[in-house]
């Protein structure tokens, strides 16, 4: 999730910098977008889904997370995104599943209270999209992950991104239940950040 957020932020920054954004973005000058944005839970969401054998799957969201997006007005490649998720806030609508996800089987929140993503690069892929690469750390395991980001808007000091991507949970010692449940976690995130 953090990776997605970072990706979107970086992608948006790149688009703004190059001046190739769509209608919304094209009106945004790089100097207008440059700055530091604080990602808040308000207007943001981090949702995930895991498919299961035979159809259907498991989906949920994290209720608590924070982050910052720093858009470099001079060199978009130097922009940075940091996202921290608190897995204790995971929710699926089923309390027993939530407890299982928080246990040592998955997030192990007793020993690992945060999941972090720190961007390392951004590559523009379209007028308003980009691929964000970064280091995702969970349960003491760090791996390079990529997310795609789309700029949704920039208005009144408020920037919005939609970020998506897939992560192999086995890379973070969270592969319990495979192959009944897919090893791939699909993230769908929306991030809203306020400059300041």
């Amino acid at each position, binding site marked *: 999730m953090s990776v997605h957020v970072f990706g979107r932020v970086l992608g948006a920054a790149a688009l703004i910098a190059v001046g190739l954004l769509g209608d919304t973005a094209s009106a945004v000058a790089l100097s207008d977008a440059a700055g530091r944005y604080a990602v808040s839970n308000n207007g943001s969401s981090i949702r995930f889904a895991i498919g299961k054998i035979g159809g259907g799957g498991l989906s949920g969201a994290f209720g608590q997370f924070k982050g910052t997006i720093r858009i470099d007005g001079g060199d978009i490649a130097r922009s940075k995104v940091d996202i921290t998720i608190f897995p204790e806030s995971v929710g699926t609508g089923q309390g027993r599943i939530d407890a299982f996800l928080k246990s040592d089987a998955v997030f192990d929140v007793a020993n690992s209270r945060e999941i972090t993503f720190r961007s390392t690069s951004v590559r523009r892929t379209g007028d308003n999209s980009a691929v964000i690469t970064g280091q995702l750390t969970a349960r003491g395991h760090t791996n390079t992950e990529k997310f795609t980001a789309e700029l949704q808007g920039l208005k009144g000091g408020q920037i919005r991104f939609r970020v998506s991507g897939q992560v192999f949970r086995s890379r973070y010692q969270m592969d319990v*239940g495979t192959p009944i449940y897919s090893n791939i976690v699909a993230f769908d995130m929306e991030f809203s950040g306020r400059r300041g």
Partner: protein
Amino acid sequence: MLRNTTTRYGWAAIVLHWLIAALFIGQFALGLVMVRMTSQRTSFELIQLHKSFGFLLLGLVLLRIGWRLGNLSPELPDEVDPLERKAAPTVHLLLYAAQLVVPLSGWALVSVSVLEIPSVPFNLFVMPHLPLQVSDAAETFWVFGHKWLAYAGIALVVLHILAALRHHFWLRDVVLVRMISPFFARSPRKPE
């Protein structure tokens, strides 16, 4: 040697008996352990293993019942007293019923669970859920049913084992040993 006769069990009945015995007792032990694990991950994996062996047990029991219906049943030795001779078919019927309903109740349990976790025996194929209503109440009911049917079944197994040991060490007849091999159809150790 594969089929039963009026005096001995064939290899098919013998192998099925011991396979099912090991599975039934092993499943009972696994069931006790898996819900008492500290690690949720280990518990989850043991429960999936319990489900896999449960479906294997159910398949073998159905095969065994079919084999039993299509075969002769060896007669009890002459020295078995009339009361035991009358009780034995009832106890055997209860044992077969336990072998059948315990795994079936487990299947019902996973079918009605609100967690809706698929059953994939030994990660080989998806076993469909039974067409039962999913609900917390139904899950609570089948947890209770599966648990107590298992306790009742294992109580029958214990009685069965004690009876077999009685035949072997006290009555010294052929009842136990003829379930070990078709070659032990006649007791070599009759009391002097």
